[in-house]
């Protein structure tokens, strides 16, 4: 199973994301933002956290127009998988691969701590957790306040596309949303960092099931 992790100027979680995929058994390539194509045969694209292009204009806005992002759009249109974490989630919304936006946290502060989450959707990203599992993952963001119009939120909930919800909403997100899936359930955007909880040395391993199941599910039989 092949994973590609995109590297933008200002990405800072790309190495951790690559390691998380590798530990789960994936063959990982890191891909610079100026590339116009993904490596041949990539199954899943990881869009890492960080501050792509210095968060200029709006978080993720400039990354969403980069050459590699167009390749990621084509990959997802062909039914490929993509996982955007933190700034990666912001890139996915700016590129309109996922609906809604991530605004400044309601309390205006950068939040860096571990938060409780409930897992709430069926997908290859979440199947490694039990039904309605409660997990804990780190967050580290200034702009994680998920907003969408009521119609979009109703649709996400009605179609079971809310992958993760905060148990104690830290940032003002509509309906406690921490992560959402695309219509075909192959694109996941989430603010919490599963790649920062995959090793006993991290002090937590609640991120492991996400990578383990995804890599296992996409590995050739």
């Amino acid at each position, binding site marked *: 199973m092949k994973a590609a992790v995109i590297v933008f100027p200002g990405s800072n979680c790309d190495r951790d994301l690559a390691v998380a995929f590798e530990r789960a058994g994936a063959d990982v390539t890191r891909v610079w933002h100026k590339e116009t194509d993904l490596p041949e045969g990539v199954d899943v694209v990881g869009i890492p956290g960080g501050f792509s292009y210095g968060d200029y*204009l*709006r978080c993720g*806005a*400039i990354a969403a*127009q980069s050459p590699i992002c167009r390749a990621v759009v084509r990959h997802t249109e062909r039914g490929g998988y993509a996982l955007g974490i933190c700034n990666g989630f912001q890139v996915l919304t*700016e590129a309109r691969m996922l*609906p*809604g*936006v991530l*605004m*400044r*946290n*309601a*309390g*205006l502060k950068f939040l860096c701590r571990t938060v409780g989450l409930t897992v709430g959707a069926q997908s290859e990203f979440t199947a490694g957790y039990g039904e309605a599992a409660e997990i804990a993952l780190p967050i580290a963001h200034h702009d994680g*306040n998920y*907003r*969408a119009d009521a119609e979009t939120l109703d649709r996400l909930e009605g179609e079971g596309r809310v992958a993760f919800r905060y148990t104690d909403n830290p940032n*003002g997100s509509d309906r406690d949303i921490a992560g959402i899936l695309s219509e075909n359930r192959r694109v996941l955007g989430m603010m919490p960092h599963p790649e920062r909880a995959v090793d006993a040395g991290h002090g937590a391993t609640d991120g492991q099931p996400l990578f383990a199941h995804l890599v296992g599910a996409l590995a050739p039989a």
Partner: protein
Amino acid sequence: MKARVHVMLKDGVLDPQGEAVRHALGAMGFGGVGGVRQGKVIELDLDAADEATARAEVEKMCEGLLANTVIERYEIEVSA
């Protein structure tokens, strides 16, 4: 040609930064500030031949990058 784009949050979208500025103004003793909304001004130098072309170009730029039309609205001013 020069263009100036004003990008503002749409009405009804909560602006936590504007709210923080409003609180600070109150703390400085400025009473009677009912609301504050914060936005961006973007100035562009363009090669466009005429105003209509410039405006059409800038509109595409706004839709594609300069504004996130999910939450923001924009106004374009063009001058020679």
